[in-house]
């Protein structure tokens, strides 16, 4: 079958699946079966977290630029779009609804809100990225964290979006939106990583100086990855805000950024399927721990953090490392029972990261 047909078919299957899932997740259910609201909530948050983790993986996992400010861009997206939907959406929906019908007008306006959220977050990413990305490693990390906190405190002081009391937002998001944008995010990041841009990004991660010596404009690519990553985080923020229907700056504290980092490290940095996996695990784990018997459930967050440390101690490269989980992976695993050497998928040479070789260690020591 030609690739194009294959891809179109795949897209069709995904769309149909999403629509079926969406009605299954709604209150009415599908053929009389529905997901209880509590589970639906966990699934929705997992979907939003997938977008966040995959987008952060682009800048941190593939480009190797350590950002702990993702929650800030999420906040920018959430608040800018909420401003639009709260103050303008109703009027627009009324005038547009007369032309194209109510539900389509509704969808178009939410789509616009998502676009606005993504664009504003991208602009914020550009403003933050250009100066910060000159810094490296831990310095970049702390500066992105600082910017995110500043963004949060600035929003806290804008009375138009609720300030400290919070901001009530219409609940537009349903599973179809989250699912569709999670798929779109994965496709976007997958395509970037497997393009020549992606090769440039990975080369920056592997050795920035060498990449520069090979003629790669490292600043350009780093900022590009950062802006795309911010835009996607902003999109997740839009979906999050319009799902919870209430925005408070407390939702975007740096602990949130940490959570997203934990997802990608847990899943394996530089692995897209790993990010998806990590996002699902980190969303579900605290909820599962609610089931702990009796008094132990009070300690669920203690158990959660202990598990986190334990995973890092036993599997420091994350659950998937830099590998991708997929059908080809299963095939390869069968062919070579012990073959865990990460062979770059799709032609991207991905070097084994962990544990660092003696040469890397020596180089690191020398660079210090």
């Amino acid at each position, binding site marked *: 079958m030609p690739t194009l047909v294959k891809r179109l078919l795949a897209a069709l299957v995904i769309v149909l699946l999403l629509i079926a899932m969406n009605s299954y997740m709604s209150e009415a259910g599908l053929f009389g079966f529905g997901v209880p609201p509590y589970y639906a909530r966990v699934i929705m948050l997992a979907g939003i977290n997938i977008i966040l983790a995959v987008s952060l993986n682009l800048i941190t996992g593939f480009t190797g630029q350590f950002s702990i400010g993702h929650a800030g861009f999420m906040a920018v997206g959430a608040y800018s779009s909420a401003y639009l939907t709260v103050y303008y959406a109703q009027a627009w929906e009324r005038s547009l609804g007369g032309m194209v019908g109510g539900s389509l007008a509704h969808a178009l306006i939410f789509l616009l809100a998502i676009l606005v959220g993504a664009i504003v977050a991208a602009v914020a990413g550009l403003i933050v990225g250009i100066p910060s990305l000159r810094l490296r490693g831990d310095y970049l990390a702390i500066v992105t964290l600082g910017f995110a906190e500043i963004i949060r405190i600035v929003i806290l002081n804008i009375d138009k979006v609720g300030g400290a009391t919070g901001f009530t937002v219409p609940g537009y998001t349903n599973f179809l939106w989250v699912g569709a944008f999670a798929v779109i995010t994965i496709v976007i990041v997958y395509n970037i990583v497997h393009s020549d841009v992606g090769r440039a990004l990975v080369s920056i991660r592997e050795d920035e100086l060498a990449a520069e010596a090979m003629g790669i404009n490292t600043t350009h690519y780093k900022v590009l990855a950062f802006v795309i990553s911010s835009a996607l985080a902003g999109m997740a923020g839009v979906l999050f805000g319009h799902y919870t229907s209430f925005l408070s700056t407390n939702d975007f504290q740096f602990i949130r950024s940490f959570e997203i980092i934990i997802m990608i490290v847990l899943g394996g940095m530089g692995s897209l399927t790993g990010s998806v996996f990590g996002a699902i695990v980190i969303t579900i784990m605290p909820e599962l721990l609610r089931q702990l018997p009796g008094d132990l459930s009070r300690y669920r*967050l203690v158990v959660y*953090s202990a598990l986190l440390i334990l995973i890092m101690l036993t599997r*420091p*490269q994350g659950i998937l490392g830099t590998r991708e989980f997929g059908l080809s992976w299963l095939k390869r695993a069968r062919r070579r029972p012990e073959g865990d050497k990460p062979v770059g998928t799709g032609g991207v040479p991905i070097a084994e990261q*962990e544990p660092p070789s003696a040469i890397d260690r020596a180089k690191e*020591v020398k660079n210090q």
Partner: protein
Amino acid sequence: MDTFVQQLINGLTIGAIYALIALGYTMVYGILRLINFAHGDIYMVGAFVGYFLAFQLGFATGPSLVGLTVVLIGSMIAAALVGMAIERFAYRPIRKYARMTTLITAIGVSLLIENLFVARLGAAPRAFPQLLREQSYTLFGNAAISKSQILIFAVSIALMILLQWVIFKTKVGTAMRAVSFNLNSAKLMGINTDFIISFTFALGSALAAAGGVLTAQYNPQIDPLMGIITGLKAFVAAVLGGIGNVPGAVLGGLLIGIAETFVVGYGQNVGVPTTFRDAVAFAILILVLLFRPTGLLGSTVQEKV
């Protein structure tokens, strides 16, 4: 002018606390290149150990200098042990792995301590017993300095001098400097690097605990999450001064303390709301790093291929 001096005193008080905590961050970073995110929680643990010591040993009933000394030293020792335990069981096994892994582990340890304390003691703030008869002395003009502020200055200066002595005049200190210069070479020279790293954690944790008890005298309210934002700002102070640099940490801490107090005191005159208090540390940090990428006193490192 009076208010200016007053603000300066208050700023230096907070700054001295930040500096004490920042020292721990900077020492650990200098040796392991690890951002010890659990350090802010050690500060909290120090305050809580002090709280329980004061009640258990019967010092909570009234102010006493003996009580204060015992509580201060007791909580420093306890925090040192906690710091060493964290290093031994969480950080040592993963020392050879990538930075990201150690960082997530540090975040995990931080969450573990916070959640453990919230689960055991509840998140509600507790009143720390006053071990010092609070009294205010008027300086020139109307500026005043309280006894607890004097205590903070005296203890933190004493501890910083002690630290300086340990680092530059003792054998252990020489070993610490050697390890921070190059861990592997230090090991080849016969230095027991594991011991030195453990010692560094103990030292840093003790300083943070002292900061915890001192803060609790100045502002007698402690809760299990008090270490998060204070720890973060102390870390910013360490980076601001040049991470890995001991005098830099003190300088950074004092600067951030003063800047914060000035935002609260004068910000409204120029249209900056007091809530920007928590943002100003980051704003200064970003500005400084853009012009001096290794901090105020940090040395520039030539990058080699």
